């Protein structure tokens, strides 16, 4: 039985339609990430699941039970906020146990549950402090403690790591994953950070302007993005889009991206069936990491080096193929010079072709 089932969810604020027909199923123990840029509706969707906002249409089922009109406190959910939302005038112990206190759980039971949660998140030594005396990471843990103490069916996380600095963010990300492995509770997690989405989620819903662009596991989203938006959103540096014409030679497809015969890319290992697109304009999506220095293999690109950015573990090289720029992620030893001509070999199994008009994957 699915823990969470959203069917046909719509949301309007006045005349503005913020969510347009959302359908999602989350299986038990799953980790669903709602990923997208600001304004795509992911936080609104989370609020609707929580019951803080009513949907304008559609049904929400939690644990098989229809909860459209059920008060948040009766939906058996818990939420962790971006600002942590810890009650500033109460000590940590009361913060964590507040939900139990409101449900009239007796003190001994409450204390036991709080102690267990605090132990799990390693905040036992902080139980008598007030939130103002805690660091950002500690507050984050306390907020999570408050969520797990009631043992709900569903956890909701609203961009919980956005307020932390980079190093802490990585630590806490691992912490959340560890928690998920341990508790096996279903999670819905909202973020705009695609690294978090890829590392944490079992299922990712990429959203834009109130519509789910693609709902799939991280691997699929990375390797087979459904459209150019998803393709460009996931992966850093972003996927390159090469504009060209798809031609066929001896039964094998290749992309002509420039005017001369040399400006073409053979696509021998392409997964997609693109026979209907021969002779038409396409967008070829090539990830920076699927290009290598050198010319082994049949698929190569050649251009002039424009910018070289060494990052330590890699070197990002912007190459100009005619007028079109291409970013390649090469190894740390690669040190091409600006103005040099460079040849890159492409792993064409990882190339995705898109329709330039609709942006959809072919």
């Amino acid at each position, binding site marked *: 039985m699915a823990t969470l089932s959203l069917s046909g969810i719509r949301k309007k604020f006045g005349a503005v339609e913020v969510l347009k027909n959302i359908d999602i199923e989350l299986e038990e123990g799953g980790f669903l990430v709602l990923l997208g840029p600001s304004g795509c509706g992911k936080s609104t969707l989370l609020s609707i699941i929580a*019951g803080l906002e009513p949907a304008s249409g559609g049904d929400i089922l939690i644990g098989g039970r229809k909860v459209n009109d059920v008060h948040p*406190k009766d939906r058996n*959910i818990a*939420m962790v906020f971006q600002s942590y*939302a810890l009650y500033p005038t109460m000590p940590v112990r009361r913060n964590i146990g507040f*939900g139990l206190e409101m449900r009239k759980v007796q003190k001994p039971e409450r204390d036991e549950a709080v102690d267990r949660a605090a132990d799990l998140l390693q905040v036992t030594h902080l139980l008598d402090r007030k939130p103002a005396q805690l660091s950002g990471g500690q507050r984050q843990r306390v907020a999570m403690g408050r969520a797990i103490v009631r043992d709900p069916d569903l956890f909701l996380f609203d961009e919980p790591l956005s307020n932390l600095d980079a190093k802490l963010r990585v630590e806490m990300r691992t912490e959340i994953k560890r928690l998920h492995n341990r508790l096996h509770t279903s999670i819905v997690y909202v973020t705009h950070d695609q690294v978090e989405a890829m590392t944490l989620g079992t299922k990712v819903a990429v959203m834009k302007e109130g519509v789910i662009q693609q709902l799939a596991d991280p691997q699929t989203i990375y390797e087979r993005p459904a459209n150019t938006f998803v393709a460009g959103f996931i992966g850093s540096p972003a996927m390159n889009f090469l504009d060209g014409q798809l031609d066929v030679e001896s039964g094998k497809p290749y992309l002509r991206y420039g005017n001369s015969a040399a400006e073409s890319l053979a696509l021998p290992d392409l997964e997609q069936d693109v026979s209907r697109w021969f002779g038409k304009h396409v967008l070829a999506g090539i990830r920076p990491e699927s290009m290598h220095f050198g010319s082994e293999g049949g698929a190569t690109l050649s251009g002039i080096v424009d910018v070289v950015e060494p990052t330590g573990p890699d070197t990002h090289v912007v190459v100009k193929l005619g007028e079109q720029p291409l970013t390649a992620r090469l190894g740390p030893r690669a040190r091409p010079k600006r103005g040099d001509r460079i040849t890159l070999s492409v792993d064409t199994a990882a190339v995705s072709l898109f329709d330039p008009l609709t942006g959809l994957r072919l």
Partner: protein
Amino acid sequence: MRGESQTLSSPFSPPSGWRRLNPAWFLGELSETRFWMYLLLVPSLVLIVGVVLYPTLYGVELSFQTMRLNRPANNGFAGWTQYARMWGDPVFWLSLRNTALWVTATTIIEFCLGLVAALALNRDLPGTKILSVLILVPYFLPNVVAGNIWALLLDSRLGVINDILVHLHILDGYKAWFADPNTAMGAAILVEAWHGFPFFALLLLAGVKGIPADLYKAATIDGAGRISQLRLITLPMLRTIIAAAVILRVIGLVNSPDLLLILTQGGPGRATEVLSLYAFQTAYKDFNFGYAGALSVVMFILLMIFAWGYVRLSKVNED
């Protein structure tokens, strides 16, 4: 630090030769000196020292003197005479009690009304702006007008409130609110509360707007109802503002007898005689400056003790 304007001609400097005579230039040059910031403060400091500090100290000095403007023969240093007299003056003690009653009741009513107003305004429903301006009106009305408005409303023969209350069968006949010692204080408290609650509403509204919305969302999910949220989130977080508002308001109430001066002049029969009123009347009607000075000094000291005590109390409560 000033750039090259001294050698180049700039819009800020007049032609040389006349320089020293131009006050604007002179002040400008002066503003670059180290003493500029102190110079800026001098005019207001002079005023404050002259018009506030000096009179206050003089007032304290007066309290140690006998000074009756209409009986100058006895004027002179009197030591603690005035204070001794105060100790044995039953009107003084009565006025203290009245002040305590008046201030406490008014502050509590104003706080409650102000809190209700602030919470209601915070919901930001359509029309809130106009309603908030209307609610602010009593606070900015002059005391003279406010007092007389209510004198008419509660008049024993012409008061509209009396009329309404009789129609609602709450009263049997018109009441002389300000003539009856039992109700005069209550009526005065009502008027003062009407006048002052917008102050609380303003401050509390500002405070409530500063509470993050996420806290209420978390509380909703945790299962706290609206009353619990008010009790456990809103009020604790407003503690500092409430303290500031209460202190400011108490000080204002104790210090200024304006409304009572207009409504009751302390009557009937000293039922509404508060300390500030007593002190004022001693000066204004009896011309007994010495005793009035002593009364004011005592009032001031009591006020300072209250303020200090209240601040300590609320700080202690926080931990």
